[in-house]
């Protein structure tokens, strides 16, 4: 199946831990994104990579670090997790920026306890 796949789907962890979320797309898209969806469903962009190059880095704590080993993968590493990091994180991909819309993954629900 052609898709954007994220792992894990659920992540429960304690404050202070470090965790990673992985994302892979097999759509041949050149741009990948991380969005955060808070408890009120608001979608806010965090990062965007185009062909492995960082092009958007919104005001996000530097505890969050994206890594793109190739244009099909964009991982998100979070250090020293805090309660406020609890949210659903979505990976998305697109071809040519926003011209034809995004394809989103199914999300990773992160709960920090």
């Amino acid at each position, binding site marked *: 199946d052609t898709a954007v796949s994220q792992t894990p789907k659920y992540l429960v962890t304690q404050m202070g831990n470090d965790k990673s979320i992985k994302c892979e797309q097999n759509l041949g898209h050149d741009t990948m994104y991380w969005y955060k969806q808070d408890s009120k*469903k*608001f*979608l806010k962009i965090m990062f965007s990579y185009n062909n492995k190059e960082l092009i958007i880095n919104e005001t996000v704590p530097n505890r969050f670090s994206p890594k793109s080993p190739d244009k099909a993968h964009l991982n998100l590493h979070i250090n020293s997790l805090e309660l406020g990091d609890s949210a659903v994180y979505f990976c998305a991909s697109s071809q040519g920026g926003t011209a034809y819309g*995004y394809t*989103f993954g199914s999300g990773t629900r992160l709960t920090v306890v």
Partner: protein
Amino acid sequence: QQQVKQSPQSLIVQKGGISIINCAYENTAFDYFPWYQQFPGKGPALLIAIRPDVSEKKEGRFTISFNKSAKQFSLHIMDSQPGDSATYFCAASLSYGQNFVFGPGTRLSVLP
């Protein structure tokens, strides 16, 4: 300038009725306006999109109406069905922009 406003926050419609969700944007440079549909536990999925060279676009039961002078656009769902119950997001961007600005979402419930 980058904000997209969306209303209502939630909407309850009877089966067979018309659901209408409205959005307004500020940045006159925006020229691509998609709507995304999100079911619980899933990622948003592109539903329908419009560019400002037309005032209306229809795909099946879903229609976008676009008013460039008012900087507003709306989603109309005709003959609403319980399966349409989801959260709907409007968004805006430049055609070849780097990212979308999303509205805050509308939770639609269609009663059987």
